[in-house]
């Protein structure tokens, strides 16, 4: 048994730095999970659920308030500028919007060449050769080296951003909504590319997405977040079939898909203040269609097992949820989507 590549232990994050003080409001509460080499873990939840904050703290862009981030067993809960160069290299971040993460005044060769210089000291011919290989990895031809970001389509720019992250030869890639802005055919090509790269290099992905169908396609394991708290964790197969947390259920029913009935709930904008603090109780209780009583408002549910590594946080027992829920895409004879990586 080896240590997982990445391990979060009771992570707590807040914005506002030290000035916020201990009373400052946390946006990520008590988040713990592991990620093994060669594995894809998806963080799922709506805007404001803390997904990006978690990725930022792993990347060192935000120092956690408390809790630990272990990378290959070492605590890395420090700011990026204090991290050793090797660690910076091993964890790479790909952002949602390639338009704002690529310098518009620099050619593509510069964007991809920089990490090659910085991390590996490559220059001249050796660097250009490596840039060409990386462009090939993301299925772009050599002509792109001389181009500027504005001469590329959105999908091409995102490939360049991926190539730049790959240039560092990372062990972990943090992918923040990297396909949300792309057309389906380009999206499919990038998802295939990620799977191919993972098989080739045993890279681990922390994949942040709000598109659950994409998550289903790519992730081995899923962590569902609501208002900064983990509500459910399990394999991809677990979180797409009953029992699931009522919040996960609502997310799944909200995906517009053929043959899937839209979630039966209110059509009106809810009056719940997204910034209000819910110190006690289940954070989802004010919106939960399966709320069972005051216990939901007053007590934070404990984790309960739903079999294997599948756990969820709900006052309704998992067995009962299983009886209440049904999804049209779950058929008993459905073959597994892809082999699950058995994590340590």
């Amino acid at each position, binding site marked *: 048994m080896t240590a997982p590549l990445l391990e979060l232990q009771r992570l707590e994050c807040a914005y506002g730095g030290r000035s916020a003080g201990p009373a400052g409001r946390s946006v990520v509460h008590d988040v713990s999970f592991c990620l093994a080499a060669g594995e894809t873990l998806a963080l799922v939840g709506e805007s404001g659920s803390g997904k990006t904050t978690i990725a930022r703290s792993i990347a060192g862009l935000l120092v956690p308030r408390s809790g630990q981030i272990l990378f290959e067993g070492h605590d890395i809960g420090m700011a990026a500028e204090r991290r050793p160069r090797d660690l910076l290299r091993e964890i790479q971040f790909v952002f949602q919007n390639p338009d704002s993460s690529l310098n518009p005044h620099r050619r593509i060769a510069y964007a991809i060449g920089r990490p090659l210089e910085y991390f590996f000291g490559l220059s001249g011919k050796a660097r250009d050769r490596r840039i060409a290989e990386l462009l090939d990895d993301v299925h772009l031809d050599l002509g792109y080296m001389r181009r500027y970001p504005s001469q590329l389509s959105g999908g091409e720019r995102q490939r360049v951003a991926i190539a730049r992250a790959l240039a560092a030869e990372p062990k972990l890639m943090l992918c923040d909504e990297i396909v949300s802005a792309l057309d389906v055919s*380009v999206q499919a090509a990038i998802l295939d590319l990620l799977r191919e790269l993972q098989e080739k290099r045993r890279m681990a992905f922390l994949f942040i997405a709000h598109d659950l169908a*994409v998550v289903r*396609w790519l992730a081995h394991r899923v962590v569902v977040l609501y208002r900064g708290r983990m509500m459910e964790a399990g394999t991809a197969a677990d979180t*797409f079939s009953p029992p699931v947390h009522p919040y996960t259920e609502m997310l799944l029913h909200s*995906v517009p898909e053929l043959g899937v*009935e*839209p979630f039966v709930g209110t059509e*009106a*904008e809810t*009056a719940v203040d997204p910034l209000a603090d819910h110190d006690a109780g289940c954070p989802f209780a004010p919106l939960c269609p399966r709320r069972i009583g005051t216990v939901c408002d007053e007590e934070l549910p404990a984790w309960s097992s739903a079999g294997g590594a599948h756990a969820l946080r709900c006052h309704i027992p998992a067995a009962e949820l299983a009886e209440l829920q049904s999804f049209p895409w779950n058929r008993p004879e459905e073959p597994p989507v892809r082999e699950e990586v058995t994590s340590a």
Partner: protein
Amino acid sequence: MTVAAAPLVEVAGLTVDFYDRDHWVNVVNDVSFTLFAGETLGLVGESGCGKTTTAYSLFGYARPGSRVRDGAVRFEGRNLIGLSARELRAIRGGAVCLVPQNPAGSLTPSMRVGRQIVEAMEEHGVSGSHRDAEQRTVELFAQVGLPRPQTMVERYPHELSGGQQQRVITAMALACDPKLLVLDEPTTALDVTTQSRILRLLARLQAERGMSMLYVTHNLGVVAQICDRVAVMYAGELVEVAPTEELFRRPRHPYTQGLLASVPRLSGQNGGGARLRGLLHREELPPGCRFAPRCGFAEEACFTERQVLAATGTGGEVACRRWEDIGEPRGRTPAETGSRR
């Protein structure tokens, strides 16, 4: 849905070019379709396929640097192409309204949201007194499901969530009782739960008011939930038009088939059939079928013979000379093809 005999909108042979440095590039080519009263038509395709340019033509609007080379856009029988700016202004925001993709960018940040709607109504002279317009704004906010509409009208855009901003924009679009709503990816920037609420809101408002909607999107799931018919665009041309259920059950055009197969599904399986390969290269379009370079069924003649929409006999139209040989993609299950409508 009952369809009136005369269409509300008739687009005939619309051809639009864009000016690129020193020459004109064709972006919409010979596009024809009709939209009936009370109907929702989806216009789908990938970025750059010309769907937004086509949709904006319904306002008689040519984007800067573009020209309508040919064709007509008839709204209630009247051709919008060539109308004066003043005549168009009476139609835009009045009989035809837009719900844009980015709600934040369409609201004035320094003006209270209620005031912005009052102004729109006064501009079109649909309100009586100022007080009536204010009263009507509160009613509209309630109709689009905004909580506490009385206080909401006093808010500034930045005080609202993305979903709330989109509702304000929808209320603004409805303020002048339009006959046609053009929706340009109105839910793309929103969370799935918010998107789901907005889609149900639109379906209800349409049923209540009997409006027509042209829904521009690249999200086929959204199309399946809200549209009566779907028009599929590729590289500036319509390749297939069909009732929603027919399109998803029996996609005829290889591009439609590829598009459907490229969509990841919640079941973890894709829709069956071959996914799209390669990318659209606008500078290398053949004189025949524009999809031919990426098509798994293309023959030599496909590259040279121009294709136009022809009836399939099952309610749809397809622009493919080989559609009868190709048949339907296999491996699809009833649960994935059944439409809600």
